């Protein structure tokens, strides 16, 4: 924390959460004024939720029908009664977060209860961590999960985030991929309409590890996701993708740092962002290549589809390269729906709304294609096709 922030007078909301919030003067927070946007004095912790409400929320999950191993967190706390924990290597505690940042500090003051999963070999079913927040009064809940994927192990991992009420969810996730390990990670941010989602995800890859990472950002009034991928061993490969489907006055800001600390690693980032109404999307992607990290291959791109004249997208790509033998690049595009595409579809009899939905699904479909789990891919495709009608109703 900067000294300026530490000595500033805390707002009632900051006092309630127990930590100062960043202002727009901080470079990473230029587009998201957390201090001004979080005005509600959220109570720390959302307490114990009614089990029948939890059960109803679980049943309504878009992934409920898929054969996944489900582990449920309610208001940031592991809910053993709704979770399938048999044969799962699970213990209390988690290592400290690597980056001392605002959202990490918040996770500490919210006294998230840390748990660690250890995965060895190949998991029998994909692991689905379902994070639910049910708040009757405005409340802030932190969750803290560490996943350790052992050398040579592989895991399909899905996390979903949903909830009811005016709450603030602050999940912090760390993942360690061992040598030659593989993870297919998919995150579905489908928080409630009044929610604030402030997430931290730190992933570290040992040598020859493979990461396939996808995030759908479509819930919450306010979303900020801090991601950090660290290459700690040579020959690792990470593809990080994301899709935004935002409408109304939604605001989502992803700050993703890909840190190549060692030679010969490959990173790809592709984000496809759809904004309608007054929504605003931000993508801040930073690729760091350390002086020793020769033969790094790192590329990032973000593409925005703006469905209304008031919608906005801001991209801030950054390359911080200290090695000389590398291939790195970035690109960003932004535009509205292609009028020729619309006319062609409509000229074949497809009504306007349906044609739009098809083109939106096609736009984000590029990143869905990289999702390994077929059932999940189908859920995502259906979600994108129905999104336009759903968010306007």
């Amino acid at each position, binding site marked *: 924390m900067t000294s300026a922030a530490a000595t500033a007078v805390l707002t009632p909301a900051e006092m309630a959460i127990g930590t100062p919030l960043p202002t727009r003067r901080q470079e990473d927070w230029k587009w998201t004024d957390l201090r001004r946007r979080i005005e509600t004095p959220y109570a720390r912790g959302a307490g114990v939720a009614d089990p029948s409400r939890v059960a109803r929320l679980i049943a309504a999950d878009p992934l409920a029908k898929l054969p996944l191993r489900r582990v449920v967190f309610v208001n940031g706390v592991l809910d053993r009664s709704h979770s399938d924990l048999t044969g799962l290597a699970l213990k209390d505690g988690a290592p400290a977060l690597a980056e001392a940042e605002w959202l990490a500090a918040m996770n500490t003051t919210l006294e998230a209860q840390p748990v660690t999963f250890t995965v060895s070999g190949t998991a029998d079913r994909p692991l689905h961590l379902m994070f639910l927040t049910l708040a009757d009064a405005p409340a802030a809940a932190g969750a803290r999960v560490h996943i350790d994927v052992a050398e040579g192990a592989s895991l399909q991992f899905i996390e979903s985030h949903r909830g009811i009420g005016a709450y603030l969810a602050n999940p912090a996730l760390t993942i360690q991929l061992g040598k030659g390990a593989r993870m297919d990670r998919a995150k579905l941010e489908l928080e409630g309409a009044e929610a604030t989602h402030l997430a931290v995800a730190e992933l570290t890859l040992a040598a020859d590890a493979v990461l396939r990472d996808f995030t759908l950002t479509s819930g919450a009034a306010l979303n900020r996701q801090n991601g950090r991928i660290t290459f700690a061993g040579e020959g690792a490969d990470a593809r990080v993708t994301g899709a935004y489907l935002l409408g109304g006055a939604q605001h989502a800001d992803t700050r993703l740092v890909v840190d190549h600390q060692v030679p010969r690693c490959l990173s790809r980032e592709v984000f496809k962002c759809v904004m309608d109404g007054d929504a605003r999307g931000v993508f801040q992607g930073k690729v760091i290549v350390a002086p020793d990290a020769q033969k790094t291959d790192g590329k990032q791109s973000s593409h925005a589809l703006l469905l209304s004249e008031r919608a906005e997208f801001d991209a801030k790509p950054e390359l911080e390269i200290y090695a000389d033998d590398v291939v790195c690049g970035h690109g960003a595009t932004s535009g509205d729906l292609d*009028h*020729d*595409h619309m*006319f*062609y*579809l*409509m*000229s*074949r*009899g*497809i*009504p*306007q709304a*349906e*044609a739009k939905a*098809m*083109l939106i*699904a*096609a*736009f984000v*479909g*590029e990143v869905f294609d990289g999702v390994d789990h077929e059932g999940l891919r189908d859920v995502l495709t259906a979600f994108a096709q129905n999104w336009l009608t759903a968010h306007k109703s």
Partner: protein
Amino acid sequence: MLDIKNLHVKLEDEGREILKGLTLSVKPGEVHAIMGPNGSGKSTLSYVLAGREGYEVTDGTATLKGEDLLALEPNERAAKGLFLAFQYPIEIPGVATMQFLKVALNAQRKARGEKELSVPEFMRLVKDKAQQLNVTQEMLKRPVNVGFSGGEKKRAEILQMAVLEPKLCILDETDSGLDIDALRVVAEGVNALRAPDRAMVVITHYQRLLDYIVPDVVHVMANGRIVRTGGKELARELEAKGYAEYVEAAE
């Protein structure tokens, strides 16, 4: 079937008038060819009839089976039976050809109050018609027109036409970019769709296509109007003499 009276159209953004009092009447079962030099307004006519944005109709009427075409959305015109085979079919990445065709057909059927086709019914329908037009299963698996050669795009257009079974087909420069073999396949596909209750308007710059799709009526279009109408022999005459005299006369 199609009745156009004194149609005046200008470009919305630059205000330039493209169609200057065009009149045309096409009866069911007839095939009409519209020939003319570049810039005479042939493509504008096809786009205006299909409902593309960017044009302003300042005068005149266009009706399909008595119904005011110009008041309808492009998808409504399609459901009423209008089909435009594009001169440059649009590539749409990420939209699978089969899904596109199925959504289009069922949207039209729904608009007409007909029962929607099930997946197996639809698959059978497309498979038969695709075979006739030399459209491979592999092409159908690709996104709409993406990675298609010029000839493949035109065959795909005619396949769409065959599946959607329109009442009025407008073929805009369907021969452009085709070699003689591809032209033959496309023309056979079009001829197979000739029917007593279906009309066609074939827009072309060259007479060549009309050797394969033989029209009942040939129109010469110049400077935004039909300036001469005749039988199929008119096409040969144009091939021999060119459009010079019409261009001069129209200006």
